């Protein structure tokens, strides 16, 4: 039976995309047929699959890390912002035109159908699906519109790992608040926490880790360092001013080398035994 695992974040830009990629790499190396999945992705540029479908570049690179062919099922809904609160919407790789947020969410049934179908496709062809969430799962005012976080986890019946970014501080508040604002059934899906973008000696965070475990009753699977020099393009996160990398400027060899560096860092800093128990329970 296909296994699933999902990475959600306390906010955008906490590092979900790269951690998802690392997991794709690690389990591919262990011999699992692995696929990434993000139900809905908002991006400026897209990747064209062999079948001519448009998907997010991030999912294409995650597929590459998993040595799998990028497929439209890995990202069934793509949104390209076009200004004036309009986005061009792609469902299953094909443009269905410009829509406002309101028009988009009025098509929720159709969108859910595409998500369901894509996840079923992946389940037929892969042993492990690594799902990535979007933004925070605790936006209570947008809960009815959720297609990318707990809704996707529910459809895929995936356990969830919550990633928090410690770079700017406030990591305790963001984790506790996120868990507090989830529904009971959603909170039960969360099986572990990863602290990302730690600067300095992670030994200094041992007590902090203990606090989080005591407060949440969940294991902190590890503390990932801030990785400065990784040549892997991250998703474009709206408004973050940061140097953009274009994957086309990095050779395939160089990309694969960087995927391996990331996977090694991940295995070094994360309790892989605990993670395995969560995935393969």
């Amino acid at each position, binding site marked *: 039976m296909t296994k699933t695992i999902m990475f959600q*974040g*306390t*906010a*955008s*830009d906490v590092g979900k995309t790269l951690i998802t990629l690392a997991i794709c790499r690690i389990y591919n190396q262990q011999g699992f047929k692995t696929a990434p999945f993000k139900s809905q992705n908002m991006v400026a540029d897209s990747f064209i699959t062999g079948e001519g479908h448009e998907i997010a570049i991030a999912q294409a690179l995650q597929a590459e890390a998993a040595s799998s062919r990028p497929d439209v099922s890995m990202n069934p809904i793509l949104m390209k912002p076009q200004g004036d*609160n309009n986005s061009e919407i792609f469902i299953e790789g094909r443009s269905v035109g410009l829509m406002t*947020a309101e028009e988009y969410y009025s098509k929720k049934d159709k969108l859910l159908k595409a998500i369901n179908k894509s996840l079923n496709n992946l389940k037929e062809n892969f042993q492990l699906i690594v799902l990535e969430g979007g*933004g*925070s799962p*605790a*936006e*209570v*005012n*947008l809960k009815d519109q959720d297609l990318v976080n707990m809704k996707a986890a529910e459809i895929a019946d995936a356990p969830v790992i919550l990633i928090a970014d410690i770079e*700017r*501080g*406030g*990591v*305790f*508040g*963001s*984790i*506790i*608040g*996120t868990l*507090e*604002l989830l529904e009971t059934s959603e909170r039960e899906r969360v099986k572990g926490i990863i602290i990302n973008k730690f600067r*300095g*000696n992670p030994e*200094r*965070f041992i*007590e*902090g880790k203990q*606090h989080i475990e005591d*407060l949440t009753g969940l294991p902190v699977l590890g503390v990932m360092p801030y990785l400065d020099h990784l040549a892997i393009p991250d998703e474009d*996160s*709206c*408004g*973050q001013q940061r140097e953009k990398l274009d994957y086309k400027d990095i050779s395939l060899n160089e990309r694969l080398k960087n995927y391996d560096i990331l996977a090694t860092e991940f295995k070094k800093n994360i309790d892989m035994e605990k993670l395995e128990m969560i995935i393969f329970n």
Partner: protein
Amino acid sequence: MAKKTMAVMIQGTSSNVGKSLIATALCKICSNQGFKTSPFKAWNMSSNSYLTEDGIKIGIGQAVQAIAAGYKPDFRINPVLVKPIGDGKNQVFINGEDQGQFNFGESDKNLNDKISATINENLSSLMTENDLIILEGSGSPVELNRVGPDFGNMFTARSKNIPVLLTADISRGGALADIVGTLKLLSEEDRKLVKGLLINKFRGDYNLLKPGLQFLENYTAKPVVGVLPYFEKLNLPEEDRSPRLQFDQSTDLSYLDHEIGKLANKLKDCLKLDKILELARRDNND
């Protein structure tokens, strides 16, 4: 009984949520309204500094806030300046006096006593001279792995019973959780000091946000006293900006007036100023 000096403190759910800019705008707006206003930040970790006319280095953010309030930067507005010098070490200055280097996370009883006394003295003396003090916090008030007192946030707020406005950055999402989680982790005494909430860096459809604000007010029983827009870069010197900035008396800062004016104009209508001033009066605070 002597009239109580008004005071309000801007704290954040993390660094970089926009506390400095909001404090700068409040200094300008309130001073325009005729309040004799002073900024104050008890504890500032910054590599960028301003040399006051007494030859004392303070954080650059407070210098800008003093200018916004219409005054020459005064060393009392930033009693503790901490400069990261690498290798997990900090250099600590109290009212400009070098206290030496300390390892990150080290808590020294003598140093803490001195910091505590100086914060209290500086703030008390500013309170006797001003109508209103706009205080700025540092980082998040619930860093559970912090060693020693939280001088930059609740320690100072508690010492003078100062109402706190908790600010979250909504641009990356997760703002509701940041506020709910931060409040939950505060002690009951400190949570009571939080009298209002601010949402910063908002862009998008306000109608989608409205139910979120309603939820926050119901859930926390604290009013949202402002929703502030996302700004494209302002030309104001920032605390953590590199390359390092070292300003002094001779630095031409005349351009700041225009930038501060722009900021204040933009934020004025987004803040519930009457409510903030009412909280700052502290009469009704138990």
